[in-house]
């Protein structure tokens, strides 16, 4: 098992290296000159040239890449072109809101979607199944920001229950945190919930046809026990794969949700950086997101042992 973990960890290294190469090439082969941006409003050609020289933008690409990689391995992602702050510091400032938003969304989505999916599979073909599945397809179909605005309209404007925007740290005030995070988490959760509910239903349907489930029923076990202990536990492997892969959707949604609710997280940082072609920040954020995504999915792979004792590493 440990050997397996080690092997999987090692396998992520070339992937991350490829991501790094990819991100670097992407940015450096694109039009737009960071030196011009840095030089500012009234810079002359000479000044721009000098900045280009300072940044090493005149060096061959592989030299630039090498330098960048060496710094990266030492935890230095360079400085933002716009604010001049270190990228690691910018990212550090923004980690908490995004982490909390994603975690809350996952908790809400998973705790709602799996039961719904199980019920839909159990009552397959009935109106309950149809309603749940139609809702799920709708969750896929409505853009995140439309959901966000509708929730602000309902939850903040009309009912006045939740603040419109912003973020309060959980370390400052727990009620403040909860009231700020609810609407964004629901907004972000819609697609994710739809995804998990569909997957749960589909795998449950497969599992429910298996012999051991029929045996369990035949033994006279209560429906709930069969559904949860026998069927769901076995369906959890593909479901957790979906939960992991779905995080990519969440990350995309975070970018939009944080804009709607003015949450100072990594998503907003990404959008701002991208719109200003702030190369070092774009590189940093994409790397951090990708790395988290890869590690998370690795972690989920490792939980399979828990759900399915047949799996050994």
């Amino acid at each position, binding site marked *: 098992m440990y050997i397996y973990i080690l092997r999987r960890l090692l396998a992520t290294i*070339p*992937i*991350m290296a*490829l*991501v790094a190469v*990819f*991100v670097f090439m*992407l*940015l450096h082969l*694109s*039009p*737009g000159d960071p030196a011009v941006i840095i030089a500012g409003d009234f810079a002359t050609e000479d000044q721009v040239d000098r900045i280009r020289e300072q940044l090493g933008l005149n060096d061959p690409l592989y030299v630039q890449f090498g330098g960048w990689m060496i710094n990266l391995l030492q935890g230095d992602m360079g400085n933002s072109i716009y604010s001049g702050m270190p990228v690691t510091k910018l990212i550090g400032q923004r980690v908490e809101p995004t982490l909390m938003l994603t975690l809350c969304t996952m908790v809400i989505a998973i705790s709602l979607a799996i039961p719904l999916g199980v019920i839909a599979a159990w009552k397959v073909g009935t109106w309950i199944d149809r309603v749940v599945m*139609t809702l799920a*397809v*709708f969750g*896929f*179909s*409505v*853009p*995140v*920001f*439309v959901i966000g*605005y509708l929730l602000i*309209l309902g939850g903040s*404007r009309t009912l006045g229950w939740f603040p419109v925007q912003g973020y309060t740290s959980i370390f400052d005030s727990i009620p403040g945190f909860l009231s700020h995070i609810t609407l964004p988490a629901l907004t972000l959760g819609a697609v994710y919930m739809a*995804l998990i509910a*569909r*997957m749960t239903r*589909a*795998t449950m*349907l*497969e599992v429910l046809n298996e012999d051991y489930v029929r045996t369990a029923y035949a033994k006279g076990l209560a429906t709930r026990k069969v559904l949860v202990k026998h069927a769901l536990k076995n369906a959890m492997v*593909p479901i957790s794969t*979906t939960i992991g*892969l*779905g*995080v*990519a959707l969440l*990350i*995309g*949604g975070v*970018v*939009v949700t944080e*804009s709607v609710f003015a949450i100072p997280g990594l998503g907003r940082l*990404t*959008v701002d950086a*991208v*719109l200003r*072609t702030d190369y070092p920040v*774009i590189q940093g*954020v*994409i790397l951090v*997101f*990708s790395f988290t*995504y*890869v590690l998370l999915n690795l972690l989920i792979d490792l939980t399979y042992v828990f759900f399915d004792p047949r799996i050994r590493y």
Partner: protein
Amino acid sequence: MSLQVQELSFGARLRHRIGVVADSFQRNPTMLFGVVVLLLMAGSAFLAPWMGLPEPMQQSPRDRLQSPSSDAFFGTDMYGRDLFSRVLHGGQVSLLVGLSVAALATSIGLFIGLISGFIRSVDAVIMRLMDALMSIPSILLAIALVALWGSSVQNVILALTIPEVPRVVRLVRSVVLMLRDQLYVQAAIACGTSTPRILIRHILPNTIPPLIVQATYICAQAVIFEAYLSFVGAGTPPEIPSWGNIMAEGRMFFFQTAGIILYPGAFLALTVFAINTFGDGLRDALDPRMQRRV
């Protein structure tokens, strides 16, 4: 001989499948609903120029933000442009993006997937590249690409296509790996049939049904992602209406004239809903066991 038999049975299977699809319309009314909505959306979008509507880009600053009336069914936007006309025309870009991304991603993915699945020597390299590409969250990648390349419909299509390719590659590759060990393929190899010929005659046809289903999902996703890109300011040029950028431009007015987001939003949601239900129906009809997506 065995080849002949296989082809015949494949043709028969195809006819059978078409029959199944037709049947499933009767058994599955939501799928029928999906197709009807889709046809309506596409029809209204591509026939919009001949419907005698105001030009979707014609500004009229003094008539801005009008409420819906018999002149302008959905009212006007902040530059006095007719919202109904813009929403209908907007369907053109959104559907074009959706269909192109689906077509491009499946054909590129099919090509790479066939190669990767059949030619052992490049498989590892290709799959590592695909893994790397897949570990960058797709919207993030698309936003970065459009922002760097500049906003145009072509760039949006390309940027949305690239992140989808690895998923198609994986799907195609898994089908190829499964088929490669089948007896008739082994037989064809033994007979000295050339690789391209094997790929085209024996393997390709079997990848089509799952690919069509996958394409519907990619298409639905691309229509939504186009809206996301526009929303964060890295989408199609705002002047050309698409559902995404009508909503993006109008978001400021949501709390006063909700229609500016809700009308295009409803068109978009209905369309995506229709594509998804159509895709679900196809999947159930073509391959009941193929239920895993993402």
